[in-house]
């Protein structure tokens, strides 16, 4: 895991200030969607090696939910954006 996370609101901060939720690529399905779609959303997780987008919350900082794009193997952090930006992007 990275040691330092560049928070878009607070600057570079130590990872201890953040809490991790998991896969940020998941989009909450429509309530009418099938059992399978909802099962995938709630229960099924990939554990990829390589690039991964995750939701991290800056708990001890601005308290914003962020999308951290990082490499699960090299721990390189490619980008950190505000979670709502991502939410608007996917049209919700």
């Amino acid at each position: 895991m990275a040691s330092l996370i560049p928070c878009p609101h607070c600057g570079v901060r130590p990872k201890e200030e953040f809490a991790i939720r998991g896969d940020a690529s998941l989009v909450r399905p429509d309530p009418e969607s099938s059992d399978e779609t909802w099962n995938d959303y709630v229960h099924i997780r990939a554990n990829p090696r390589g690039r991964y987008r995750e939701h991290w919350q800056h708990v001890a900082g601005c308290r914003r939910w962020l999308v951290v794009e990082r490499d699960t193997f090299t721990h390189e952090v490619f980008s950190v954006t505000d979670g709502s930006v991502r939410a608007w992007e996917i049209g919700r």
Partner: protein
Amino acid sequence: MTAYRLSAGGLVDRATSLNFTFDGQSMKGLAGDTLASALLANDQMLVGRSFKYHRPRGIVTAGASEPNALMTIGSGARTDPNTKATVAELYAGLEARSQNSWPSLKYDVGALNGLLSPFLSAGFYYKTFMWPAAFWEKVYEPIIRKAAGLGRAVLERDPEAYEKCWAHCDLLVVGSGPAGLMAALTAGRAGLRVILVDEGFRHGGSLLSETTPIDGEPAAAFVDKALSELATLPNVTLMARTTVFGWYDDNVFGALERVQKHLAVPSSKLPAERVWRIAAKRALLATGAEERPLVFGGNDRPGVMMAGALSTYANRYGVAAGKLVALFTNGSAGYRTAADLAAHGIDIAAIIDSRADSTEVAPFGTRVIRGGSIVDTKGRSRLSGITVERSGFEERIDCDAMGMSGGFSPVIHLACQRGAKPVWSETLKAFVAPDVGAGLRLAGSAAGLYALAACLKDGADKARTIASDLGLLTSAAHLPAVGEETTASFTALWYVPGARSKAFVDFQNDVHAKDLGLALREGFGHVEHAKRYTTNGMATDQGKLSNVNAVGILAGMQGVSPAELGTTTFRPFYTPVPFGALAGTSRDEHAAPKRVSPLHGWAARNKAVFIESGLWYRSSWFPRAGEKTWRESVDREVLNVRENVGLCDVSTLGKIEVFGPDAAEFLNRLYCNPFLKLPVGKARYGLMLREDGMVYDDGTTSRLSDEHFLVTTTTALAGGVMSHMEYCAQVLWPELKVRFCSVSDQWAQMAIAGPKSRLVVQALVEDDVSNAAFPFLAAKAVTLKGGLKGRLFRISFSGELAYELAVPAGYGEAVADKVMDVGRMHGICAYGLEALNVLRIEKGHVTHAELDGRVTPDDAGFGRMLSSQKADFIGKRLSTRFGLTAADRMQMVGLKPVEKDKDIRAGAHLLREGAKPSTLNDQGYVSSACYSPVLGQFIALGFLKSGRERYGEKVVVWDRLRGEETLAEICNPVFVDPANTKLNS
């Protein structure tokens, strides 16, 4: 007496004598000594006993790789076990004790293990202590632990202070030998923010024992000049007594600074040690190279040392390890040591050179045995001679110390801590660092350069490259002129054949060459397997001296190159780091801060017994004179609430204020029950689900105005619910116009419950609180008599007529005192968490004991709260899935023992009468239980398959933990006032 202080030379202060003790014996050293150099100066060659065979052991090195000279230093609570004497700085009054010997260092009983050594081979523990299994814990392990004595941690509380800090720099230079020092000078002059770290108490590294002149002066003078220049540069920070122990992501380094470990009387204003996290744009490892021991028969006898260590003790500390010294070498380094020692007037017995065709020149008059090897050593607890073999002829040579030099291994530990594997270099006959990118580079001996001039130049060059990487142009550095040097070279020699006695590879863990052979024969030839099987490299030194030799031997036996075999994995820490330093200031209340309610003082005045609940200290019960057990107090409190009135502190509940035009819509999506039409001035009980349909948290939410709500959460999930709401608002529904913030700490909240509560509340507030004006679930801002603004909620956890009064936290205690004053005439009592729990169980109200993450709203009896009108809410979709709606799910029920004097406790399982206890027969479990003073018997809440259809049936409450079985009747979980007449009165 053979080891002694030389009459002149060295960087010790001969005018400052320091007294210290070793195993109770008084000794003298000099300022500038390490404990090891001072022990040698006192001719203390024997310093410890080995781990397995309890063999006598002496000092081997002059640095951090020391495997033998582990000491317990200090006294009382200020005792540090396993401290390397070779790096411990001597101070006046230092108390050192040897380890792993009983009854004394000289006469050690455990040495009998040496006689048993045929039975103590590699894998011995695995093979011998396998059976019977029960013996392991009771017999074998305690004995092994007693015998395998490294130092012992003391049990007293650590009186030292520790702290953790961050540092930031452009360039971190690790090591201040020739390469590090030149790098710091070059980068510092170029204007980079530089941190120069050295593990020693004096900067300079190998330059402090270097005899080659630099710029026509002694190397130590060059160091002094460089340091005084660095001290004038504001952009350079010098850190001595600091070990960089780890390399972490984003070029953050962990370092341990021993701030006051070298002081007899540490200042109370400073920490003993500091852990630094250094965020460095670039780092340069100038960590030098480690001289390798030679693996020959009897190579562990006290007096056998690394050749380089002999030079260091003589050149830097002015100490000779012996009067007549032999050297065993496979390269030029042994000759260099011979020259160093000869220059101090120490006699050289012989140089035994494993190479037949070497051309190095020995000091005048020194005997050189080329193509020779040592097959055994003589002496009891210290060296008296060696047996040398050449071309089949053997010869005994007398000596009282000897140096061995088996070539060099660059110290690349840090560079390999993040997954990159070391690379075998056939030219250097050593593992070198892999390319790990621009963030971390190596210079000097750490990069495989062994000549002084080359190291100085490499440090300067690498610093210039880094400066230009970071956009700073530097002119070519002035390189100091270096006197004549011999070229360093050696021929690999992993194992010296013909050993007459044990040839040790790992001194600290007593692994000898034959153990590695056994590992290979038994199928543990892989380098990682061999390590675990033989324990080679697993001691506190982590194989700093032994690993490369072990790899060489294993590779040789398998007929492959060390490149093919590879090495074991490098992990932080480079050297051990004390737990105290890692904890830093996070101990006691700084590790687990004590959270107290704004009413804590009030509770304490009313003689509350407090209980830790998470970080909170909550009032548990309020004993009165004459009450002998907690139950007596709790029963009284419960009955008083049911009959009169009580005051309970409920300030620890989470409170979140929610604002905005979409606040109602937001809450409507967050809770499973509807919130859009909640009227202003009303509270409503709400259930939050997880997306998988299980209950997450519960609490009341009040609408204070159209666009302003107050959410309450359980104490335990106050933080979790806040985060969850933030996720929903920011990520799921950013289009909703809603804002919220936690006000948990801003309000003191007290429950005033009981049939007489209205009398008490009306006496306190200006507003009308009659049933008509302020009915059940009313929630409004009120004015207290005297003008204080507060909030009043008609909600009830106890099932009684009850109010919760909230006031700004700072007023909490004063208002609570006033409530007690006003309530005295109505018989008010303070009641605590225990009574609250009894009251809510009697009323069938749930807590997280029921809502444990496996429970749906319907399981807990809230099925009707699940809104079918709402298009969506968190958990809606999966609430309807198969399995969550099954008829035989466990549903919440009440339980009463059939025999009134029996008790039930939480955690017990429920079985049909006559059924055998098994997972298959499990019918449910007890979630909460208490003695109900109202019913005069134990009652419980539990979850039972199809429970709501089974009221009146009997089940067995099976309590395996206490070995009890109790027959109980299933009933409605609301034991008290099921019609809610009290609540609504």
